C-alpha cells in the first residue's frame, strides 16, 4: 500500500489487515511508554485546508507514537494567503523532505492529484464528499472489537442516519462495514441522499445498502445506530425545513432510545450537534442497555491511523495491497 486514498482501492484482505495491525497499536498504546521506533526516519506532514480538531490531532499523535517527525500545515496561516498555488505549496513542502502527506481538502480527488505531483506517500484525511478512509477503518475497528467479533460483522444490522449527501464518512464507513459483512441501511430524507439516489428506481451502483426514509421502522431491530453530523457549513440550499423537524424525524429521541435493542450501540463520527442528531442525554444510554461507542471511536482513531502509517512503509507486501 503506497497511498490510502479510498477504501474502494482496498480489498477485504487489505482492510482486515489494517484492522489486525491496529490491534498491535492498541497494545502499544496501552504501555506505560506508548511509543515504538518504527517510523523514526520518516517525516509526516499534515496538510489541512479545512477545519479539523480530531482528525489532524489524531494523525499527528499516531505519527508521534511511531516516532515519526511531524509537520503541521494549516492553510489559514500560510502563504496560501499570499496567493501561493496548491501545487507550489506541495512542491515546497515536498522539497523539505516530507515522506507522507496527510491531506484534507474540500475538493474530492485532490489527495489523488498530490500522489502525481511528488514522490511522497499520501493519506486522504477527507476530500470533499468523496472519502474519509481512516474514519471508515476506525468505525469498523471500533464496532467489531466492541462486539468481540474479530474482523467479521456478518449478521450485524446498521442504520446510518442523516446527511448522507454531504458525507464522506458515509462513503468510507459503508464500504468498511459492508466488506466485514454488516448490512447497512441508509436512513435520511430524500433531500439528504446523494443526487444519484434521487428518483432512481434502485439503489445506485457502488452503494451496498438499503434505503429507508423512516427511522421508526428500523429502530427496534438494529444492532448499530450510526448518526451522521448535519453539515450545516455545506448546506447552501434548503435541505431540511428546520433542525427541530429533522430531529423529530431522524434524531435520537427519548422515545426512540426506549425502543432500541439491549446490547445495541451508538456511533457518531463527531463533532456532534447536540439537540439535533442526538436529543437525549448520552449518560442515559446505559439505562436502556445501549452502549455509547463515540469516545472509543476517537481513542481507536489513533491506533487505526498508526496502523495505516506503519503499513505504508512496513508492508511492501501484496498481501495488504488491493490495488
Amino acid at each position, binding site marked *: 500500500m503506497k497511498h490510502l486514498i479510498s477504501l474502494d482501492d482496498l480489498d477485504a484482505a487489505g482492510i482486515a489487515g489494517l484492522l489486525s495491525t491496529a*490491534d*498491535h497499536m492498541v497494545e502499544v498504546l496501552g504501555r506505560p511508554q506508548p511509543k*515504538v*521506533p*518504527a517510523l523514526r526516519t520518516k517525516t509526516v506532514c499534515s496538510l489541512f485546508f479545512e477545519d479539523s480538531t480530531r482528525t489532524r490531532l489524531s494523525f499527528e499523535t499516531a505519527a508521534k507514537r511511531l516516532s515519526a517527525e511531524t509537520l503541521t500545515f494549516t492553510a489559514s496561516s500560510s502563504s496560501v494567503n499570499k496567493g501561493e498555488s496548491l501545487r507550489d505549496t506541495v512542491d515546497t513542502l515536498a522539497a523539505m523532505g516530507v515522506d507522507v502527506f496527510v491531506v484534507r481538502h474540500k475538493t474530492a480527488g485532490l489527495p489523488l492529484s498530490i500522489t502525481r505531483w511528488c514522490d511522497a506517500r499520501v493519506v486522504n484525511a477527507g476530500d470533499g464528499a468523496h472519502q474519509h478512509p481512516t474514519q471508515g477503518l476506525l468505525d469498523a475497528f471500533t464496532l467489531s472489537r466492541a462486539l468481540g467479533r474479530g474482523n467479521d460483522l456478518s449478521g450485524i444490522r446498521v442504520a446510518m442516519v442523516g446527511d448522507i449527501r454531504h458525507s464522506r464518512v458515509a462513503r468510507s464507513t459503508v464500504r468498511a462495514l459492508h466488506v466485514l459483512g454488516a448490512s447497512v441501511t441508509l436512513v435520511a430524507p430524500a433531500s439528504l441522499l446523494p443526487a444519484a439516489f434521487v428518483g432512481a428506481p434502485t439503489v445506485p451502483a457502488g452503494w451496498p445498502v438499503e434505503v429507508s426514509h423512516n427511522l421508526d421502522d428500523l429502530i427496534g431491530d438494529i444492532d448499530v445506530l450510526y448518526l451522521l453530523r448535519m453539515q450545516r457549513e455545506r448546506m447552501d440550499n434548503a435541505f431540511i425545513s428546520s433542525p427541530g423537524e429533522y430531529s423529530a424525524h431522524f434524531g435520537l429521541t427519548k422515545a426512540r432510545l426506549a425502543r432500541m435493542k439491549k446490547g445495541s450501540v451508538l456511533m457518531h463520527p463527531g463533532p456532534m450537534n447536540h439537540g439535533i442528531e442526538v436529543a437525549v442525554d448520552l449518560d442515559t444510554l446505559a439505562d436502556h442497555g445501549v452502549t455509547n461507542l463515540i469516545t472509543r471511536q476517537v481513542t481507536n482513531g489513533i491506533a487505526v491511523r498508526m496502523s495505516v502509517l506503519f503499513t505504508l*512503509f512496513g508492508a511492501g*507486501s501484496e498481501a495488504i495491497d488491493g490495488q
Partner: protein
Amino acid sequence: MASNNDAACVLPADQVRRAIKRIAHEILENVAGGGREPFVLMGLARGGVWIAEALRDELGNIDGTARVECGSLDVSMYRDDLALRPTLPASVSHVPCSLDGVEVVLTDDVLYTGRTVRAALDALIEYGRPRAVRLAVLVDRGHRELPIRPDFVGKNLPTNALDQVSATPEGVFVSTGSRA
C-alpha cells in the same frame, strides 16, 4: 519460509523433540536459582512462539515446581529494515508479567543475521528491565551481521546465504533456493 516438499530434512521430528528437551535442561541449569526464582520464556513471533511453549512444557516435565512464565513478542515495529522487506505484525505481543528484575529467555526458531534479536532487545525493554536476557534458538545457521550469539542452541547448521531454513515441530528443513 521453505516449503517442506522440495526441502531436505536435516533434523527429523524426534531429534527436534530431543533438542528441545536438552535446551530445557540447559536452561534450568543456567537460570538464576536453577528455576527456584521466576523466569520468563519469550517466543519471538511467529516462529519462536511454539518453541517457547514446547520449552515451558518440557520444563514442567523436568521440574514441576520451576517458576516459569511464557509469553510472545512481536518485533516488527522495532526492525531496522522496515523499508527493505515486507514487514507485517504477526501476533499481538503477550507479556505475562512485569519483566523488572526477572531473567528472560528469548526463543526463536532460526538465528540468522541477528537483526530480529536486536529488534527484540529493544522491544523487550519497553516492558521493564530484566536482570538478564538469554537467547535460545533451535537452529543457528550462521551469517551474523551483528555481535549477537545464542546461549542455547539446538543445532548448528552451516548454510549458504540464499538457503531457506524452516524449523518446525515436524523437523528442520533446508531448501537451496535462489531469491527472486
